[in-house]
């Protein structure tokens, strides 16, 4: 209760402070609009179908990219992670490709696919892929040695071992990777729209800026922040929920 109240108070303080800056003339409202105007803009937009359409473009790109990246990362990650030879052979390649900033690929994606969703998907998938891939590789390699020996001594089949040993071990890693990937995919979905110009919230941000519409710009930025918050909350919730039995989560819960 105290936490909620204080949090609300902090938020209120932030909004009041924001309102005061243009009111006191510290910054021209042309560059930092009144918070009341931005809130008014938000309420107006929420009733506008065009706004929701743009939002759905962004979220479609996000969801598609995330799904493609996750699928590829799980298949490749499990395949490579379970075979020590492949794990060793791909190590350098992974360590070299992973730190490459995905935005470096924007020009290439644009050349290949033009100013379209597909170009945006290239960079979303590239960025989100590594988050999941790395976690899956760790996850399938992390099977407890005692548990593995137990499985072997009971002569579980390969299929049973995958089902009862590898999958439960790797699942927490996968979900962590998924949460990280979801956040990264959103960042790149919006970024791609800003730079490439495929329709969505990101493009609206760029259009508002070039049109000098500060109110719309700040409003849209707030919307992307709220989207990010929503994505974080949902994926964290899923992670907690499905891992209630898992030790790392239990320990974390107890420590709090």
């Amino acid at each position, binding site marked *: 209760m105290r936490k909620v109240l204080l949090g609300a108070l902090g938020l209120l303080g932030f909004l009041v402070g924001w309102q005061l800056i243009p009111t006191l003339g510290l910054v021209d409202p042309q560059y930092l609009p009144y918070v009341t105007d931005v809130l008014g803009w938000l309420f107006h937009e929420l009733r506008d179908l065009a706004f929701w359409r743009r939002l759905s473009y962004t979220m479609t790109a996000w969801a598609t990219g995330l799904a493609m990246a996750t699928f590829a990362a799980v298949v490749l990650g499990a395949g490579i992670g379970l075979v020590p030879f492949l794990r060793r052979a791909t190590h350098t390649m992974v360590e070299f490709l992973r730190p490459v900033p995905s935005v*470096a690929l924007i020009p290439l994606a644009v050349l290949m696919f033009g100013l379209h969703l597909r170009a945006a998907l290239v960079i979303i998938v590239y960025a989100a892929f590594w988050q999941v891939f790395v976690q899956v590789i760790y996850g399938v390699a992390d099977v407890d040695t005692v548990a593995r020996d137990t499985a072997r001594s009971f002569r579980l089949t390969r299929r049973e071992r995958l089902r009862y040993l590898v999958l439960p071990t790797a699942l927490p890693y996968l979900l962590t990777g998924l949460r990280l990937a979801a956040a990264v995919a959103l960042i790149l979905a919006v970024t791609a729209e800003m730079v490439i110009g495929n329709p969505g919230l990101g493009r609206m941000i760029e259009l508002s800026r070039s049109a000098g519409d500060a109110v719309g710009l700040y409003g849209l930025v707030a919307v992307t922040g709220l989207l990010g918050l929503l994505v974080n909350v949902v994926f964290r919730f899923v992670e907690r929920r499905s891992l209630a039995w898992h030790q790392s989560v239990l320990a974390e819960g107890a420590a709090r």
Partner: protein
Amino acid sequence: MTALGAKKARLPGPVLRAVENVLFALGLPVLTVLLWGIWSAGSTNRFFVGPLTILDAFRRTWIGPAFVDDVLPSLYRLALGLVASILLGVAAGVVIGRLRLLRELLEPLLEFFRALPPPVLIPVMMLLLGITDTMRVVVIVSGAVWPILLNTIDGVRATDSVMRETADSFRITRWERLWLLVLPAASPRIMTGVRQALSVALILMVISEMFASSAGLGYRIAYFQRNYLVAEMWSGILLLGLIGVLLAVAFGLVERRVLRWYHGMKEITRA
């Protein structure tokens, strides 16, 4: 795998193991480049040029004045932004982590700013600060500071209660407490935050230059693309990749040094 193991056992030890390690490390990358070279030689796809063409473009484009005019300023802003983010994030994180009231006041706001996709701050900063180098550094800080800040807060909060009582009972001074307890105890989390901040900062460096610049790495690469200078564009991607890899390697070295106690301790508890 067993056949391979049997063969290995017959050959003499350390030299061969070294050769094997090198083969494993370089085999796939070399193979990939070779295949790429062969494929691109016979291909008519003009967006995929061969590795030799890219290397040649790399030499022509980046080794020379462009390095001083475009690459160094970008790297300088990146470094400046990162250093500022680390100082700001750690300092604010220590304060917020230790003051419960402040933490509870700020929590929803911090969650929001953490979740905000950092590149959307570029247009905002352009509006507030104009298209300047200051803007580009501020953009990097405004995106990279959050992971460091939030991880520092968590790290400071999670400082072990017995360690704190130890400091209390021996009447450690505030200053000693900061340097000998709070910061080292939070350092694993701080380093996690810095690692995340590195990739955010690199992204923001590139985008802010693609957007609003007439110089810099990001600008160059976008320029090559717009003018269909495909080999040059690839060389730019290669350069960005190299910077990303070098940053990751440098960070890894620093991290191993700073957190030597942490890794050593983890290794022992795992064994």
